[in-house]
């Protein structure tokens, strides 16, 4: 699984970080950083949840 964020859509609301802090981090500069573009299988459910809960539909995964 590869995680892709469309930074033109992302508004740094950190919803994804609340769900999968191992993968997403919004830092003090208010930008989102993808910590792990290829999360292991144990994180796949969390990442899928983040895809669903992102209010801007900014995250996608390439399986």
């Amino acid at each position, binding site marked *: 699984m590869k995680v892709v964020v469309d930074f033109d859509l992302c508004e740094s*609301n950190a919803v994804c970080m*609340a769900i999968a802090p191992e993968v997403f981090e919004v830092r003090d500069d208010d930008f989102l950083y993808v910590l792990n573009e290829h999360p292991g299988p144990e994180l796949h459910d969390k990442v899928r949840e983040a895809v*669903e809960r992102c209010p801007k539909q900014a995250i996608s995964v390439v399986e």
Partner: protein
Amino acid sequence: MTTIVVVGASLAGTQAAQAMRRAGFDGRLVMVGAEPHYPYDRPPLSKSYLVDAEVDEERLRLRPTVDPDVLAADWRLGRRAVALDDQRSVVELDDGEQLGYDGLVIATGARPRRLPMADPPTDGVFELRTLDDARALRAALAAGPTRVAVCGAGFIGAEVAASARERGLEVTLVDAADAPLDRVLDTEAGLAVADLHRDHGVDVRLGVGVADIDRSGPRVDGMVLSDGSIVAAEVVVVGIGVVPNTEWLSSSTLTIDDGIVADETCLAAPGIVVAGDVARWPNPRFGGRSMRVEQWDNAIDMGGYAGRRLLAALDGGRVEPFEPTPWFWSDQYDRKIQLAGVVGERREVVQGSVAERRFVQIYGDGTGRLTGALCWNRPRQAIMARQLVTDGETMDAARTKLA
């Protein structure tokens, strides 16, 4: 084969359907939606969609339905449920079709409340809930008006005002309350929203209602306010709250009280779950307070929960209650306003200041327990605060963690 019918094909209904498919439901799934469109996302409609003619409607499609086959559903779009017989487990549609079900998800959402003198709104008066509403309003804003009058400074009204300003139009925003957003924020925070709009050139009139729509000919001339003054405008937008879509249930045995009343697991009757803007339930996280939440994230959360809840009901499984900490955002100009949880009787700014419009204000109940936090351009803190409310933290703990 087991049949599950979902009435209301929008955010909550789609999420319920997706959750059930993910959980392995392989029976027949019927999605009934009154709108002719596949499910789409509403928040952009008052924001980017109104400002930017380039916003592509395809992008609004909800992800799970970009490919409608993913849900393997039988779509009944542009079709309305007109009655529910919950004793016989049958939903009747507007064309007479009778849909029998084993399980039913009701997610019929809400529609804009209307002014008695503009019901339905026509000829220059607009409301905003659907894609069709947004198309009409965007066309009117693009047709070269100079002045826009907005009745109601709730989220929709405030966002429409901001979007119209971004198009360079003159905007008047009127609300009968003493502050904008008075149903969800404290007065002072609401007044900060008023100041934000004033600084962007909006004429904000508070504490004065709209008495009438001003029209001499077929088109609107503006609004007549309760103090007798007239706000001239070529476009009038009404955003005075919403009404849950429950009329079609009047012949059922479901309890209706400003929404469909469910138990703490979203169950409204045996085999019937509810979710989203139409649903009312006691939220254990807030002492069993009866809630009906008109917010995007809740529709997702509750929709997914309700889908799993329904499957559990069908196969006798058990579930935990639905006890979320609500969270919403609103974008106005360059500000992101977010509220995690709910306002409380105590409040305190713990970071930044209201004056600089970048702050965190926490709320607590009489005992000092954290109930929520309002964040302006502090997105990370909003999500942290949401977790703190969920964890049952105190205001003291939140002050340290969010400062």
